[in-house]
C-alpha cells in the first residue's frame, strides 16, 4: 500500500546486504578500543585534560594548536581540547537518550499495534506510515519547533523521530511471534496475555531491536550534532560537539581548529558506531 514503508524496508534490506565487515577486522578492534576510551572520557573527563572547558582567557584567544593548547583555543580563549573532552558527555547523552526514547516509544506502540486488535493496529500503523515518510531530521525539527531547543528537547525530538521505524520493526516481529505455535500452546495452557507478551514476545523482539538501535545510535549522533550546529541544541555555556562546530563557524577563515576538531570527533564516533552496528547485524543474520 504505502510506498514510503516499502521504500524504507527495501533500503534497510539493501544496506544490510552491503558493506560487510570481516569479523576480525583491525577496524573493529580500533572501534572497540575507541569505545573503551570513550567510556573513560565519559566517567573521568578530568583524567584527560588539566584545562577547564569554561575558563576564558582573552589574551590567549584564537591560538592555533600547540604544546599547551593541543587543539588550539576558541574566540574566548577556551581550550578546544578541554571543551571537546567535556562536551563528549552531552553529545553521547543526547544520542543515547534519543535512542532509548525511540526504542521505548517504538516498542510500546509496536506491541500495542500487534496485540491491540485490528482497529488499533490500523490507526497506529497509518500514523506510523505518515511519520515514516518524513526525513528523520525534518521530523526532529518539527518537534523542536513545538518544544523549543535545548539538550533535553533535542533528545526528545530525535527520539520521537526514531519511534516510527522502531514501532514498525517491533510490530512485525511481535506479530510473527504471536502467530507461532509456542504462543498458541501458551494460550491453550491458560497463560495470561500480558504474561505471554513479557515472556515470549519481548525476548524475541529484543534481538532485532538492539541491532536496529545500534544503527539508529549512529544516525542520532549525526542528527543531534546537526541540530546543535543549527543552534538548537544545548544552551551556552554548555556545548556538545555540534554546538562547538557552530561556535567556530564564523572563525573558519582565521581559526579552523575550533570547528574542525569537534566535527572530526563526531565523524570518528559515527564510524565506530556504524562498524559495531554492522557487526551486530552480521551476527544476527547468521
Amino acid at each position: 500500500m504505502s510506498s514510503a514503508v516499502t521504500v524504507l524496508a527495501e533500503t534497510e534490506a539493501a544496506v544490510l546486504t552491503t558493506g560487510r565487515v570481516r569479523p576480525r577486522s583491525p577496524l573493529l578492534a580500533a572501534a572497540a578500543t575507541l569505545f573503551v576510551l570513550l567510556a573513560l572520557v565519559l566517567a573521568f573527563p578530568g583524567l584527560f585534560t588539566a584545562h577547564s572547558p569554561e575558563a576564558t582567557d582573552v589574551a590567549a584567544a584564537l591560538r592555533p594548536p600547540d604544546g599547551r593548547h593541543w587543539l588550539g583555543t576558541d574566540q574566548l580563549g577556551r581550550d578546544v581540547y578541554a571543551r571537546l573532552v567535556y562536551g563528549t558527555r552531552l553529545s553521547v547523552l543526547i544520542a543515547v537518550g534519543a535512542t532509548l526514547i525511540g526504542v521505548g516509544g517504538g516498542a510500546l506502540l509496536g506491541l500495542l499495534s500487534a496485540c491491540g486488535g485490528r482497529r488499533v493496529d490500523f490507526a497506529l500503523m497509518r500514523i506510523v506510515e505518515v511519520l515514516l515518510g518524513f526525513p528523520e531530521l525534518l521530523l526532529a525539527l518539527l518537534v523542536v519547533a513545538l518544544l523549543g531547543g535545548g539538550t533535553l528537547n533535542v533528545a526528545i525530538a530525535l527520539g520521537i523521530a526514531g519511534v516510527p521505524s522502531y514501532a514498525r520493526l517491533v510490530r512485525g516481529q511481535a506479530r510473527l511471534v504471536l502467530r507461532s505455535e509456542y504462543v498458541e500452546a501458551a494460550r491453550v495452557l491458560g497463560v495470561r496475555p500480558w504474561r505471554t507478551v513479557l515472556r515470549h514476545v519481548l525476548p524475541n523482539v529484543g534481538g532485532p531491536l538492539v541491532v536496529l538501535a545500534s544503527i539508529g545510535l549512529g544516525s542520532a549522533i549525526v542528527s543531534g550534532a546537526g541540530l546543535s550546529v543549527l543552534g538548537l541544541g544545548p544552551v551556552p555555556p554548555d556545548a556538545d560537539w555540534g554546538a562547538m562546530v557552530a561556535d567556530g563557524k564564523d572563525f573558519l577563515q582565521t581559526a579552523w581548529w575550533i570547528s574542525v576538531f569537534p566535527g572530526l570527533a563526531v565523524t570518528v564516533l559515527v564510524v565506530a558506531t556504524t562498524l559495531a552496528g554492522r557487526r551486530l547485524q552480521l551476527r544476527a543474520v547468521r
Partner: protein
Amino acid sequence: MRASVPGLPPWARFAARRAVAGVAVVWGTVTVTFFAIHLAPGDIVDGLIGPGAAATPELRRQIAAEAGLDQPLLVQYGQELRQLASGDFGWSYQLGQPIGRLLGSQVWPTVQLAVSALATALVLAVLAATLTAGRGRAVRGAAALTELLAVSMPSFWLGIILLTALSYRLHVFPSIGAGGPASLVLPTLSLALPLAGLLAQVIRHELETADGRPFVLTARARGLGERALLLRHTLRHALLPLTTLAGFVLGGLFGGAVLVENIFTRPGLGRVLASAVGSRDLPVVTALVVLSSAVFVIVNTLVDLLHPLIDPRLREGGAA
C-alpha cells in the same frame, strides 16, 4: 480494494491509484502536523508571534481571531485543510509576509543545490562501483572503507573542511552566498559525497551479485564483450534498486540541505526552515513539512511510473 476502471490502460489505472494514495499521505501529514501543533503544551499565539516579541492582550486576541484560534479545534482543522487545498500556506507573523511568496522566493536555490548534488552523487557512485566491483581484496577493501567514511561523514563537517581547505586556504572557490556556478561547487560536494558513498555500496553489491545471473550468462554466451555487457545489461540491472531508494535519497538531500545551506550561508528552503524552527515560527514550519511530504509523494509516484522503462520485466503484465 482495487477499483478497476474499464477502458484505461494499466499504467493509467496504476497512476490513478497511486495519486489517490499520495493525496492520502499528504492529508495524513497535514493532520498529524495540525494536531501535534494544537495539542502540544503552550499557547499557539506565542508560536505565531515568536519569542521576544511582546504583544498586548488586545493584539494577542486579534491574532488569535485572525488565525481562527477562537474556533473549535475541528472547525480550525477544516479551515486549515480548505486553505491548503486552495494552495494558501497562510501568513508568517514573524516575517510579516505570506508564506507562499516566502517559499516561492527561496525554492530555486535549494532545487539547484539538490539536483546538482544528486547528479554528482550518481556519477561518483557509478564510477566508483564499476571501477571497483569484482576486483581484488585490496581494492574492494579500500573502496568499502572510503564508502564507510563518506557515508558516516556529517555533511556539515565535510562543508567546513572544504570551506577551510579550498576556499580560505587555497582560494579556489568562493566561500558563501549564491553568486554563479562556482559558489555551487562546494555545497554540492558536501551534500553529494555522503550520498555517493551510500549509492556506491548498493550499486557495487548489485554489480557483484549480477555475475552468474542467467541474463549475464546468456549475454556472455552470445559473445558480448565485457564492456558492452556492463554498459548494456549489468549496469542497468544495478541501477534498478536505486529507484526504490529515491524517497530515502530525497529525505537525505533535504535534511542535508538544511545544514549545508546554513554552513555556506546560502539562501534556500533549508535556511528558512532552520530559522523558522529557531524562532518557532509554526506556520512556516507547517508549510515546509507539508510541502516536503508532497514532493516526497510526487517523486515516489513518478519513480514507480518510470520503473517499467528501466526494468523490462515489469512491462508485460502492466504495473500491478
